């Protein structure tokens, strides 16, 4: 944790700028929302205040002007327009730059402020009033006579007259006399009221302001006279003083004392509300991410050790031992859930920047875009969320740049001028599906084909479905736009996206409909650390698969058992589900079990049945990555260590489902060919 408030401010400023940006983007949609204006204003206000505190003067100065301009909006003197939002966003960005690299960008602020002031119709704010020059620069000791009496409620409101006298003493030599004239008889004394007044003779070099400063907080309702005792100058000083003497009204604001408590001082007051209520939500702790990773590792080891313990005690007759083992199992699974929960963050933390991205893109490309995001609350492991930022930026750029057509072309095609890009995240079993859908022109299969042919990726004779052709855009170096725009760039394309997603043990799916748009869906595992698994046996090998991906388990019908190479489809309540015989896929030796089971698993909208010899049971699967030597085996997404210390491979459900879809497509092609 940092100990430099300036670092904390930088972090805080990032958060404030982000919420400013969100408020501005929201305002663009609902320009009349007062709360959004207030929220933006509050962000600016805090930025200014804290920035000035920690030496970010450029920030404070710039934000001050920004705030002044925006204040006109807050007061309703200027309307929220797209032009205002655009400049305000630019101003926000500028603040970010000023914070990250002070001294480099200050000059670039002027045109932004000018534009801002132009829009809000402000002539530029009056520079903040300069500090008044000290009234006398000669430092010589003068004598003063000071008389003061505190407001009645001063004690209750926390003023301590002894501290005031101490302060006067610090200014110079003091002669202090308490005036007791107003002290009532004992029976009339209200212990909360200060009846004393004081007369002080002070000799000090300090200017009058310093003396006034002692009583700075007491201007209302107190009597204060400050009189210079210097012969010769007294006339002018007194004249000057007249305007400075503070109000002498003792009775104003008396009502505010009503709030004061019964007892006069804090010392006599035992704390009355000791029952510390549990605070919810508002208190949080920043922890370095590595510590979370370390914690997860330890919990993983604990889970493995616990599995061993369970296995050993399972065979034991010692009831007491069994009880303890069960207790530890319960505790470790609780600890696992909590630890994983700590690592989960809502994906919405990423979405904010995408709105800005779309906003900027639409201006840059001259396209009208409506951006709709949903499922912000969907949670994913933080590592996954962090690594999703770049791929999603790329996909959204693609959708706006290549997917959506120009407004004119959309009109010609009978579509609304305004294109739509939807970003949605949903939970689906053991995974989260994130889809980016545009209502643009769809992918051009012919153009992809031409490109793939000229790149030598496919031969001109090859027959490929449109869907198969679309997948070529994931090929390294493949770019579908014939002219490369500045927005989408060149080179790092969909192949980089695909690699990132696969490195996260996720998969990517692309569908496109000519004329009505393209959808890219990312399927990602909920976590990279520990999952609830189902342990199965195929031949001699044991394999784990994510329990959340399992839809149901059925017995392999007798009719299918014999037909080893036959049609691999099962009828599950009326729908045909392809199935894979894992014995065949894995080249298992030995005789298959007499009653083979089919586990129906799903990924996205697709399902596949996995035929296994035996379902062993559920287990906690601590996911260990496979080494480079096994990285290209699509069938397995990792490995885990079982209770007996041996290693089991984890089945990659998304990959197997894709494999099964291959069957389906072949079947469809076959049918079509037969019908033709």
């Amino acid at each position: 944790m940092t100990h430099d408030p300036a670092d904390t401010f930088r972090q805080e400023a990032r958060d404030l700028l982000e919420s400013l940006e969100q408020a501005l983007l929201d305002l663009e949609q609902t320009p009349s929302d007062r709360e959004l204006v207030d929220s933006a204003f509050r962000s600016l206000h805090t930025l200014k205040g804290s920035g000035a505190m920690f030496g970010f003067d450029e920030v404070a100065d710039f934000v001050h002007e920004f705030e002044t301009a925006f204040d006109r909006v807050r007061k309703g003197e200027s309307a929220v327009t797209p032009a205002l939002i655009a400049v305000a966003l630019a101003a926000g960005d500028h603040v970010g730059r000023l914070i990250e690299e002070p001294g480099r960008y200050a000059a670039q602020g002027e045109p932004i402020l000018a534009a801002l002031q132009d829009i809000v119709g402000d002539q530029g704010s009056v520079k903040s009033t300069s500090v008044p020059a000290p009234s006398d620069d000669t430092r010589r000791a003068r004598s003063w006579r000071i008389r003061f009496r505190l407001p009645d409620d001063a004690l209750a409101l926390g003023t301590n007259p002894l501290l005031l006298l101490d302060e006067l003493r610090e200014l110079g030599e003091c002669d202090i006399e308490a005036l007791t004239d107003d002290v009532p008889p004992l029976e009339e004394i209200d212990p909360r009221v200060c009846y004393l007044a004081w007369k002080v003779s002070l000799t000090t070099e300090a200017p009058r302001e310093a003396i006034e400063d002692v009583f700075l907080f007491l201007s209302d309702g107190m009597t204060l006279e400050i009189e210079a005792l210097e012969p010769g100058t007294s006339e002018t000083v007194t004249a000057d003083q007249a305007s400075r003497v503070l109000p002498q009204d003792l009775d104003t604001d008396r009502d505010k004392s009503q709030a004061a408590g019964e007892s006069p001082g804090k010392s006599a007051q035992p704390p009355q509300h000791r029952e510390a209520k549990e605070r919810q939500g508002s208190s949080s702790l920043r922890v370095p991410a590595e510590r979370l990773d370390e914690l997860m590792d330890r919990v993983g080891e604990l889970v493995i050790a616990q599995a061993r313990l369970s296995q050993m005690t399972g065979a034991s007759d010692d009831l007491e031992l069994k009880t303890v083992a069960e207790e530890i199992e319960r505790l470790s699974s609780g600890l696992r859930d909590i630890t994983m929960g700590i690592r989960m963050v809502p994906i919405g933390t990423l979405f904010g920047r995408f709105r800005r991205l779309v906003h900027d893109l639409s201006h840059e490309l001259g396209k009208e875009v409506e951006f709709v995001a949903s499922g912000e609350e969907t949670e994913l492991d933080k590592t996954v969320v962090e690594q999703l930022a770049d791929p999603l930026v790329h996909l959204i750029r693609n959708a706006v740049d290549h997917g959506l057509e120009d407004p004119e072309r959309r009109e010609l095609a009978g579509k609304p001028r305004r294109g739509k890009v939807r970003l949605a995240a949903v939970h689906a079993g053991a995974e989260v599906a994130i889809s980016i859908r545009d209502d643009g022109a769809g992918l051009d299969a012919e153009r992809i084909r031409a490109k793939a042919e000229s790149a030598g990726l496919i031969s001109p004779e090859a027959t490929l479905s449109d869907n198969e052709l679309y997948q070529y855009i994931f090929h390294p170096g493949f770019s579908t736009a014939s002219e490369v725009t500045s927005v989408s760039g060149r080179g790092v394309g969909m192949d980089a996206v695909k690699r990132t997603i696969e490195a996260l043990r996720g998969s990517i799916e692309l569908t496109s409909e000519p004329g009505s748009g393209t959808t890219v869906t990312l399927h990602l595992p909920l976590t990279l650390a520990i999952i609830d698994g189902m342990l199965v046996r195929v031949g001699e090998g044991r394999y784990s698969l994510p329990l959340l991906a399992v839809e149901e388990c059925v017995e392999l019908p007798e009719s299918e058992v014999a037909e080893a190479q036959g049609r691999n489809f099962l009828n599950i309540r009326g729908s045909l589900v392809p199935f894979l015989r894992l014995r065949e896929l894995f080249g298992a030796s030995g005789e298959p079990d007499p009653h083979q089971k089919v586990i129906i698993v799903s990924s996205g909208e697709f399902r596949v049945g996995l035929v296994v010899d035996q379902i062993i049971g559920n287990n906690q699967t601590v996911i260990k990555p496979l080494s480079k030597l096994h990285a290209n085996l699509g069938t397995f997404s990792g490995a885990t260590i079982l209770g007996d210390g041996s290693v089991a491979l984890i089945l990659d459900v998304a990959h197997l489902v894709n494999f099964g879809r291959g069957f389906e497509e072949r079947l469809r092609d076959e049918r079509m060919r037969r019908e033709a």
Partner: protein
Amino acid sequence: MNDANRAAIAMQALILDLGGEIFAIDAAQVREILDEVPITQVPNARPFVDGLINVRGRVVPLADLRVAFGMTRTATDEDSRIVVIEIELGGESSIVAIYADRVYDVTDIETASIEEAPKVGMRWRSEYVRGISRRGESFVIIPNLERIFVEEGDLEPVPQKAEA
């Protein structure tokens, strides 16, 4: 082979038996030697690395040099050992295990005793052999593990930089 190269090969070596041949592995690379542990077969993996083992909670690939040297893979027996070594794979230091029919001892291999592997007349791919030394009557093969893992494990020989 010049003298400088020979000096580089001189080492303390773990001596082991594979298919009746004697091999020497740089002792500095060896992490530990395990008695027989459960081996998990990896379906559809290359025969050279078709196993996985658990080394103190870590899943480690198990390689069989016999595959690289074209030897028959005989069943394990009580002398079989697994040698866990640290090796550069694709530019990253990695932990892998190699199978041994038997492990003898750790010996100093004198620089002067190492000879270059003959380019011809050998049963094995010469680039898999760094050098040959003698141990009494028999030859000791010093395998080029990095090269073997790259070739047999189908790894990129030069680490690929990720695109910017």
